[in-house]
């Protein structure tokens, strides 16, 4: 009987060996994957086991953490002025995960990042409670408040950047949401979350329009078209007259014409300066048609179109697509298939205001360890040079003239050079929905331009007049610029 018994012993040995191999596979090879699986609750438990680090604006935290009596998640995120800052912070919810800065810098905020290994180890050895690092943003609290309060109850978005560095100063979007409402995991959190979803609220308050939504840019796109005319040598300077008729007949069509909004102000065969001053469609339709699709795309892309920008929150991609001649002509006045985020429109003004140099937009200045050591510092980076300095300064003059003597007058600030451009973009099937009123502007001081801002507001009055951009959006842009100039 001993021979089969030895075989049974070998068999039992094989069973144990199989078990050992299996546990090695699960706990060693597969371990990393299992540890970080989205359904493994330990990930969230660890995330909320310690007070989370803060997101900082102007030296003050705009976030916080409170201790709860939950079984799994000890600390809960809080936000001050949550609705105002939501487009910047995103949310960090025990039940619903996190997004935007809260998600991108989760490692820094929880203290789990590899770069915080040293400080984490010190804390562990000295028995201190673990703390997260902080994320210092470039935002300007006054500008943000001016933007958010300026938008008020209307639907709209504001993006403001510092043209000299690309630092984002304001990023507001309405309607907004307060991420505190669903930071926990109770029933009220679940209800608040559900009520914010697109199915429950068609206005999509969590959309973050300033960064993540593209709109038809309307007449604000005429700045890009003007830059294209100068850069490609179609026109020698901004005051050179053109030969474009009113109404303008689209190329390659059987006499389809596009009218102007404002009549009898000299748009007929007008220059870029006049075209911007009175937002003459014929001038920019003509430029775009004469330059052609390829050159228009080239200039648009040099301003940042057709790619996303990681600020580090990734922006939606503003687009200037390949198209046929009539469509391309209309894209020159921002009324075809080209689309832009408010951030992109602000970048156009910023490039002009910064003498043709476009800086990469960013909103995180530095990452700090819990002991305030700087872990990462942003260095302003040049993205591209869409304009020569001479052409940029010529366009500045034209934009400032538009504020002094044209449609952009509501943005005038006494004692400061301000350049601006209005816009109205129709949208919806057959333009049935409320049009968007646009305004884009910059302010100029002796140290260069400290702010460029783009505002888009949905105009419930349904006015198709280009002037509505000046009426609705310009005051918001003005107060944002004043806030930046005052601080």
């Amino acid at each position, binding site marked *: 009987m*001993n021979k089969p018994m030895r075989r049974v*012993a070998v068999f039992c040995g094989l*069973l*144990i060996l199989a*078990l050992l191999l299996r546990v*090695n596979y699960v706990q060693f090879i597969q*371990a990393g994957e*299992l*540890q970080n699986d989205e359904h493994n*609750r330990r990930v969230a438990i660890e995330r909320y086991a310690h007070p989370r680090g803060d997101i900082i604006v102007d030296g003050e935290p705009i976030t916080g953490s409170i201790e709860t009596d939950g079984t799994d998640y000890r600390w809960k995120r809080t936000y001050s002025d949550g609705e105002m800052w939501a487009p910047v912070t995103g949310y960090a919810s025990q039940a619903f995960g996190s997004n935007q800065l809260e998600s991108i810098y989760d490692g820094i905020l929880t203290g789990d990042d590899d770069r915080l290994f040293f400080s984490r180890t010190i804390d562990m050895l000295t028995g201190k409670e673990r703390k997260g690092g902080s994320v210092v943003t470039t935002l300007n609290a006054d500008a943000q408040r001016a933007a958010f309060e300026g938008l008020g109850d209307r639907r709209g978005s504001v993006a403001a950047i510092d043209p000299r560095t690309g630092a984002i100063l304001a990023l507001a979007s309405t309607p907004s949401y307060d991420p505190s409402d669903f930071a926990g995991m109770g029933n009220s959190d679940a209800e608040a979350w559900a009520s914010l979803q697109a199915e429950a609220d068609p206005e999509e308050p969590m959309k973050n329009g300033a960064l993540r939504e593209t709109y038809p840019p309307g007449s604000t796109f005429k700045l890009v078209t003007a830059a294209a005319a100068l850069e490609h040598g179609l026109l020698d300077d901004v005051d050179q007259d053109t030969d474009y008729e009113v109404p303008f007949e689209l190329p390659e069509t059987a006499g389809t014409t596009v009218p102007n909004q404002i009549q009898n102000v000299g748009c007929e065969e007008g220059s870029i300066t006049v075209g911007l001053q009175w937002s003459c469609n014929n001038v920019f339709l003509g430029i775009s048609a004469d330059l052609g699709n390829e050159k228009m795309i080239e200039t648009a892309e040099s301003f940042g179109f057709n790619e996303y920008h990681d600020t580090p929150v990734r922006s939606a991609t503003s687009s200037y697509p390949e198209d046929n001649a009539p469509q391309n002509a209309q894209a020159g006045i921002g009324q075809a298939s080209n689309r832009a985020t408010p951030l992109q429109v602000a970048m156009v003004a910023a490039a002009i205001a910064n003498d043709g140099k476009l800086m990469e937009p960013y909103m995180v200045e530095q990452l700090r360890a819990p002991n305030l050591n700087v872990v990462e510092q942003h260095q302003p980076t040049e993205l591209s040079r869409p304009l020569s300095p001479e052409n940029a300064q010529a366009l500045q003059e034209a934009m400032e003239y538009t504020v002094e003597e044209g449609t952009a007058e509501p943005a005038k600030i006494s004692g400061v050079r301000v350049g601006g451009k209005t816009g109205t973009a129709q949208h919806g099937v057959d333009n049935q929905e409320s049009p968007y009123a646009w305004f884009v502007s910059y302010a100029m001081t002796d140290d260069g331009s400290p702010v460029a801002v783009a505002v888009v507001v949905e105009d419930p009055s349904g006015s198709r007049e280009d002037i509505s951009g000046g009426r609705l959006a310009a005051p918001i842009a003005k107060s944002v610029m004043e806030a930046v100039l005052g601080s």
Partner: protein
Amino acid sequence: MSSTANTTVASVGTPSRRNTELVMLGFAVLVTVLAYANTGLALDGTLPAGMVAYGLGLAGIAGAAHLVVRRWAPYADPLMLPLCTLLNGLGLVLIWRLDHEPRLQPANAAPSQLMWSALGVALFLGVLIFLRDHRVLQRYTYISMVVAFVLLLLPLFFGADTNGARIWVRIPGVGTLQPGEFAKIVIAVFFAGYLMVKRDALALASRRFLGMYLPRGRDLGPILVVWAVSLMILVLETDLGMSLLFFGMFVVMLYVATERTSWIVFGLLLSVGGAVFVASFNYHVGQRVHNWLNPLELGSNGGVTETAQAMYAFGSGGLLGSGLGEGYSRLIGGIATKSDYILATVGEELGLVGLMAVLLVYALLIQRGLRTALAARDPFGKLLAVGLSGVFALQVFVVAGGVTGLIPLTGMTMPFMAQGGSSVIANWALIAILLRISDTARRPAPVPASSTDAEQTQVVRA
């Protein structure tokens, strides 16, 4: 090679090894008490209040067991008792640690588990004291068969459906009992007695077919009955594990008794056929197989399944584990965290290293059992020992393999570690029988009158 020569050598050379056992027992108690202290420090920040009493209690139980072994089974294997003490002690610590999680059921399981363990050790001592020779069990071969059938069928009539399996019997006032745990010992006794008598008929009277020796129809009868009963358990009680254990043990013992490989082939065919048949027709078993193939898939209610939670526990433990008391195996939830899934807590809190150590302790225990079977001198003892060790090995494999996702999960408990009275009592009895066989095997025969032949034989050997 005369048997006299062997006994002569043995009578001079076999040490009792009781002191080894005592040292190893001390080690097992020490490890357990340190684990207890470690858990208390992690959970409450202080040494557990009952630590001294618990340590003394465990040492007392182990000491009593050791003294009884020293007196009534002096030549028994020296490692089995310490290994079982270590596993049982660690199990108690883990259950006590999981008692700290308020939502886990049953609440406050450690004290009752301690009581069951004490009862188990008492039964262990009772077996050693009153069962002076394991061959006595041979007389009860057919009674064992009847008892085994009754035990196996009991849950069908008085059963409580728990977690989809019908393996529990509710005794009013006492609690629930898992008759299957006891049945496996009784069945081993029956198989050993039956096969010892029939082995020659089964082994020799067979026909060759396709190069294999096939048994005669009349010899095949009992095997088919066993197969049918195990399938019946599977279908009616949906107890995949017990059915596998039952049939696996039978095949192993049959193979050892007859030395015919054809039996294994035959047995495997029957069990695979049965398993496939049941898996495709029984929803519960099919569900288990589905969970096994898709361990991380969300449950039908959109929640994370217990299978997935156990996998997360293992994965999160990683190489070194979170430390006792610092894991989150409570997330497994349900009613089985302290019993069927106890290994997940081991894996998470003690890590791969700790889990491998625990598995090796089981491996060592199985190896001692199989060694006892090899050393036993009588065929009944050999068969019984190999059956008990084999069923123990299969159970360890089926439970650990199921929890770690190697094979589909079956509702069974890890011997000695898992919470559950029936299991711990039955396994202590199982070990007692193995110790009794090993004592008989290693016990020196009465010293024969010294003969010059024997001495010469020794000289030649040397």
